[in-house]
């Protein structure tokens, strides 16, 4: 009489485990999908922000090239503090003539090429208002980025 009602218990356990398996699979797939999307969106947003900063650098470069004597150029543009829930930093790297943008979590790195007539100075800015300006100390034909 000990094996009575085993089939309904087994049926119950089997149903539960199959349901758990399916649900877990669904959650993992969904989570990975969202994470992949987030990474892609951060990558495209970083490159768009980088291109906007690069074009600000080019604007400042153009104004400096057109100027004579003691010229002062300041160009501001506001960007989001965070992108897709992650903070980020912008590094102007004069060695390779590029802007390096890096988000924190997940970590994504994007490089944007910048070409200018003026000298670039290694400098860093975070999200928010990004200011491109020429150096306040001589020689003035050097461009830096900073938070405005």
């Amino acid at each position: 009489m000990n094996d009575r009602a085993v089939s309904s218990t087994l049926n119950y356990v089997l149903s539960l485990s199959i349901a758990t398996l399916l649900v877990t699979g669904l959650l993992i797939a969904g989570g990975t999908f969202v994470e992949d999307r987030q990474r892609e969106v951060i990558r495209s947003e970083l490159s768009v922000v980088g291109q906007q900063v690069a074009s600000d650098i080019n604007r400042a470069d153009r104004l400096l090239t057109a100027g004579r004597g003691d010229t002062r150029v300041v160009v501001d543009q506001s960007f989001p503090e965070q992108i897709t829930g992650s903070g980020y930093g912008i590094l102007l790297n004069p060695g390779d003539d590029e802007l390096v943008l890096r988000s924190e979590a997940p970590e994504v790195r994007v490089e944007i090429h910048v070409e200018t007539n003026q000298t670039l100075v290694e400098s860093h800015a975070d999200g928010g208002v990004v200011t491109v300006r020429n150096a306040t100390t001589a020689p003035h034909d050097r461009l830096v980025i900073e938070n405005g």
Partner: protein
Amino acid sequence: MADLGADLRAERGQILLIAAFAMAVTFVSLALVVNSAIFTENLASRGETSGSDDALVVRHEVQQSVGESIEYANTYNASSDATLTANVTDSVATIRNSVANQQASTGKIVAIEGPAGFNHGTRIRDNASAGGSNFTNASTGGTPREDWTVVSDVDRTRAFTMNLTDAPASDGFVVNLTADGSPSTWRMVVTRDTSPTEYTVTVHRQGTTVGSCTVGDSPEYVRIDLTRGLVGGQPCPHLRYGAGIDDEYDLHFNNSDAVTGNYSMIVDRDLSPTTPPVNLSGSRADDDPYVTHAIYAADVIYRYDGPDITYNTTVRVAPGEPR
């Protein structure tokens, strides 16, 4: 035996419930991600927001306006350097007020200061009445000569224009620049063919022909703007005044008795009309070239303050100067 009856019905389906909740969270975060993607597109399609193009446009307007006031002062009252300076300073004050008011209406602050510095020069002109005269030197230089030095040791020349008729068919009228350094020569030769009348301007550099431009359709005269590179009002790509010459140069006219007309130029050397160079007159005498005071260039300080841009610089104004 396990009781699978009605008492536990309320506690069934927890896995589905948790799964639904987790999926809901996933969808909400997906919505946030998609929202960020939309914002990215918006950011990407942002055009010029800071107004740097406007800063340059207004700067150009200021340059044009101050240039006009310099030309006006040079043309109408060139009795002394002090008069010219005072007149241009007054005009710049007027321009400052009108530009500031106009730009303030669109939310920008534009300030012009100065002129901070003047580069005094000299206008050399031959504007004999009744169709002009030939381009020979002034009678103060002795017997009129067809080959003569107009001015020596100049760095820059601007607004150099001439209207002329009667150029010879060959061995034409020559504007000749010679410098100490290398490259040292630049020449412009004007010749005229008859039937039909056609003027040809040929440019030589270091003895090599650069190219030529022709004005046809039997014109009565031809207007040549040397520093702007225009022949008969049309751009002549070969005519780049003094191209390649970096040092101080002397300006000579050759075969100048073969042409008739008038000319005017402003050089950056401050020659006094009271003691003019030997080939030029100190005041207007009917068919002699003469010198007057002129402002060659002026520097004004330009400040532009927009919502997202600050631009301060010095603007050099020298209307009609070759690039």
